[in-house]
């Protein structure tokens, strides 16, 4: 077993254990921290694969952005002694069913995929390539999704400002 596979198994173990702990924990902030561990081991897997840009994006968006936001909202709303209630059996069964359907679909795809051995083992994607593809309008360009997402974000931003400002109009 070479280094890569040892590291891969360690990372996968961390990912699976922290993923399970994130959904089963009764303390909400601990669950958020385990979610963080799961997301960082995914980032580490990307590093292992050689996709540095994707790994850095995973860190800055999911860990530096989303998890920080989750922790922030927990800090504002939950007391340290707060424990989550145990979900009802019905909910647990339904979510287990949903997860199994999702996992089954993924596994089926993976097993049926032939995975041809790559002839060119140079997975390093440069920033230039990403940039030209992202704003390219030729074949394989992503300029339309890019613009759509920026419009979506603008809408979200305006909506947030409207919601935050509404209180001023109400009579006190």
């Amino acid at each position, binding site marked *: 077993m070479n280094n890569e596979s040892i590291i891969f198994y360690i990372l996968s173990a961390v990912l699976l254990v922290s993923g399970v702990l994130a959904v089963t924990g009764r303390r909400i902030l601990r669950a958020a*921290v385990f979610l963080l561990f799961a997301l960082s081991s995914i980032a580490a897997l990307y590093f292992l694969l050689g996709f540095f840009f994707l790994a*850095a*994006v995973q860190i800055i968006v999911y*860990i530096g952005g989303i998890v*920080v936001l989750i922790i922030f909202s927990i800090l504002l709303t939950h007391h*340290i002694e707060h424990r989550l209630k145990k979900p009802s059996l019905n909910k647990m069964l339904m979510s287990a069913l949903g997860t199994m359907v999702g996992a089954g679909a993924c596994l089926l795809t993976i097993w049926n995929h032939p995975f041809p051995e790559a002839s060119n083992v140079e997975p390093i994607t440069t*920033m230039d390539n990403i940039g030209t593809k992202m704003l390219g309008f030729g074949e394989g360009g992503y300029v339309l999704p890019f613009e759509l997402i920026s419009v979506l974000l603008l809408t979200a931003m305006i909506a947030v400002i409207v919601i935050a400002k509404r209180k001023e109009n109400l009579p006190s």
Partner: protein
Amino acid sequence: MNRLILKINIYDFTPLTQAIHDALSESFSPGITTLIEMVIIGIAFITLFTILGLVMVYAERKVAALFQQRLGPMRVGFFGTAQTIADAIKLLLKEPLMTKNADKFLFNLAPFFVIIASFLAIAAVPFAKGLQALDFNIGLFYIVAVSSLGVIGILLAGWSSNNKYSLIGSMRSGAQIVSYELSVGLSLLTMVVLTGTLQLSEIIESQQDGWWIFKGHIPAFIAFIVFLVASTAELNRGPFDLAEAESELTAGFHTEYSGMKFSFFFLAEFVNLFIVAAIGATVFLGGWMPFHLGNWEGFNLIMDFVPPIFWFLAKVSFIIFIIMWFKWTFPRLRIDQLLTLEWKYLLPINLVNIVVMAFIAMQGWHF
């Protein structure tokens, strides 16, 4: 061993690291070699952290004394140089206290987040030619990404202490770091427009004929100022230290920490200061590149004679001195002033600046 000593060249470390790699490869399999190299680099960085902590705490106290017309530490050792070693021993011997109603798991975990974030970030810092642990093609982006991990440690520390002051401190710190991260990123992006690459070694190579702060006209200078202000805020240092404001919050997020756990936060703060100064020196001041003046051959030769590592350390010390200068001259900002500064001034300035810079780069007006 003799082979290795012969390879030591203070102007270029590539032969030395290559020789170490070859010597290890001779006796071990590739897997074990990588492992040993990782351990060596880890130990080197831990040593660097310790030295940085000792030197920078001393520097901070002396600079503070200078600005307040005092002498600073003078008693232990020559001019008080051994003072920080005494402080470190004191911190090691202190009892690690634990609050009764704290969330123990997160309370113990939080300091590691902060220190690991610094560890990840310092790995990509180029110290001299061939003296860089990680040289990703996304180097600058990598540093910005991993340095955002530190805020999680601060937030967890404040919440798990189960203390109102700590919670307020960490909330302030979180709001501050999340907002100022934008300005740090954008000011660095302004320079990336000129360099055309994110790889730190290439950024340094591109400054062979002059540092970007001189070559990039006024926008580069504005970006440098914004970078300094925003990164001071991101470091939670004065005048933006309201996260730990002693007079209001006792000590903010690390009120409940003692002994080594406290010193983790303390050390990480100083190491982050070093990292920020190193990024600033690399992107704006040419990293380990010596100072060259046009066609003055003689002058350039003398400058080349000074080893790159000294150039790097001199530039880093210069930026660290400026940031310490901020701390001891400006009064602390209020939280609303702090957020106004970022969202209403720095961010718009930055956005306009980046457009101006893109225009200059497009026209080829930079040198």
